[in-house]
């Protein structure tokens, strides 16, 4: 009980009080303590990613092993997890031929590079005619460039009389570098899947609004009318349809973007502010309860 409850409570209370004091006393030692605390948080957050990964494996893995409903999707999740992990930590790609000198037959070398990089011969000539001291990186026209592909290109360049060496992106920077496996996973899997999921929302919103947006009472009517005004007022069509109101001064308030802006800035802002103040007070209350050791549910158990 002492180790599981009392010690964590003391740590939480101490850190909470320090962070609270550092807000009001931005001087030594509190400002220093705040820097350390945020760095600890960063480190813990990084470890939390590992925990998250393990938790995903545990939950999805159990589904696969027990052949529970939808186990095939779980299998896809586990495989995707390992594939991304492999391309992040073990296999990176991102190799490239590094042109050090075009040699005695530069035109043939430029023609080869133009074809291999899928670019214009004139641009290629101006880009590669004067390689720097460290050479000039050749970005091959492929989604991923493995060591073997880069070496093959080097051999072909050398056969044409050029001097080229093998270059590679460093670990870490390969995450954002070109022609790497990790980048390929991001752009070929994650991006289209993620965009597709989000794009489906438009269809469901249309279908749901058709079925659920009904004038059942006064509140629903207000919601529906303001929803329609905002939907039309936010897009150029709304402005276009009510542009005529701008020519008659006493009707100018009927301009849909004006109505939309008013709805956004007054009734909506007032409602949002009320909700936020409520949430803020709730956070203050809960935080104080945690710091004072009254609230212990965050430690799990009873």
């Amino acid at each position: 009980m002492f180790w599981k409850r009392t010690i964590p409570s003391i740590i939480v209370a101490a850190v909470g009080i320090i962070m609270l004091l550092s807000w009001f006393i931005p001087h030594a030692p509190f400002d220093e303590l705040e820097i350390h605390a945020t760095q600890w948080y960063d480190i813990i957050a990084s470890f939390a990613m590992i925990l998250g990964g393990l938790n995903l494996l545990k939950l999805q893995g159990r589904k696969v092993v027990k052949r529970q409903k939808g186990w095939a999707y779980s299998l896809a999740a586990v495989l995707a997890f390992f594939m991304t992990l492999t391309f992040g930590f073990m296999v990176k790609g991102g190799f490239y031929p590094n042109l050090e000198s075009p040699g005695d037959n530069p035109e043939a070398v430029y023609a080869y590079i133009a074809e291999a990089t899928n670019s214009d011969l004139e641009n290629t000539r101006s880009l590669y005619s004067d390689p720097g001291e460290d050479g000039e990186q050749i970005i091959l026209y492929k989604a991923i460039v493995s060591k073997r592909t880069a070496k093959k290109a080097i051999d072909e360049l050398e056969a044409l009389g050029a001097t080229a060496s093998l270059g590679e992106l460093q670990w870490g920077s390969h995450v954002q570098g070109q022609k790497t496996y990790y980048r390929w996973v991001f752009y070929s899997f994650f991006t289209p899947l993620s965009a597709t999921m989000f794009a489906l929302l438009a269809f469901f919103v249309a279908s749901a609004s058709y079925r659920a947006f009904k004038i059942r009472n006064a509140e629903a009517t207000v919601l529906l009318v303001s929803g329609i005004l905002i939907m039309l007022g936010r897009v150029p069509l709304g402005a276009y349809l009510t542009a005529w109101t701008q020519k008659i001064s006493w009707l100018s308030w009927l301009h849909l973007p004006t109505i939309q802006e008013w709805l956004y800035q007054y009734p909506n802002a007032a409602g949002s502010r009320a909700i936020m103040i409520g949430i803020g007070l709730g956070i203050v209350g809960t935080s104080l309860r945690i710091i004072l050791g009254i609230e212990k549910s965050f430690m799990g158990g009873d």
Partner: protein
Amino acid sequence: MAKVSFLEKLDSLDRRIIFLIIALVVFIPLLVPLGLPVETTQLTEDAFYALDELPQDAKILLSFEYGPSTKPEIHPMAISVLRHLFSKGNKVIIMCLWPDGLFMANEALDLVARQEFNLEYGVDYVNLGYRPGNEAIIKGITKSFAANFSIDSKGTSISQIPIMHDIQTARDVDFIFSLSAGYPGAIEWVLYAGDPLQIPISSGNTSIQVNQLLPYVKSGQMKGIIAGMPGAAEYETMVIRKIEKNIGVITDDARKLLPNFKERRNATKFMDAQSIAHLMIVLFIVLGNVSFFVKRRKQKKY
């Protein structure tokens, strides 16, 4: 048995028909653009002028907190904001609180900083990359950048990056702009950096986030918001208008790039489709209600 009218049948319309209609009203305006004019609203104007009034030597912290799912809404804002800042000669420091934000930042920088403006990395802009820790990172950089970002996204020590030489903490930046699609995002920037350090802050968000953020705008804690794709289209229009009409500080490069900016209007080109889709959803709601009333009246009769 009472005869079921067409209007009553509408209430149980197959959702696949709704999906098909939505797909068509989105596709057709994309293929045949209507060219509806984009009118600017107060929220976007406030954000634009807050950035526009910054002096030429101002340093802006741009934070990327969105991924592929919300890319259509927020990425055009990122491009427009970068075009706006670089067209004034401002320096930009980029960081990401979302892991996929790094890819979004690189894409935007590759287009605007490298291809369009041909700026020098480390001198005109820097990408510090992603760090886990959410608001703790924001709180951390209010005390020390180096403690939280010892290296940039390419693995270079920030002590070797010229743009970072006179930036020790978030206090040293002149403006914070958060491109955010959720948590952590604009609210956390206001709570942990903008408000405590009195750094002006603005944000580009998805449309659904505007409700939460408006109280901060109304209280002056945020300088306007770019709200969703319509906001992005408005911002694009304002950047083009500024350069066209030669208002304020504009670099020669920006003047040369104007035709390019006009051609690549990433948000404006989708506004026709969004306009018609919104109109169609409104029609669905009206039809749904007509059907609902016809049915209810019939039920009362019997």
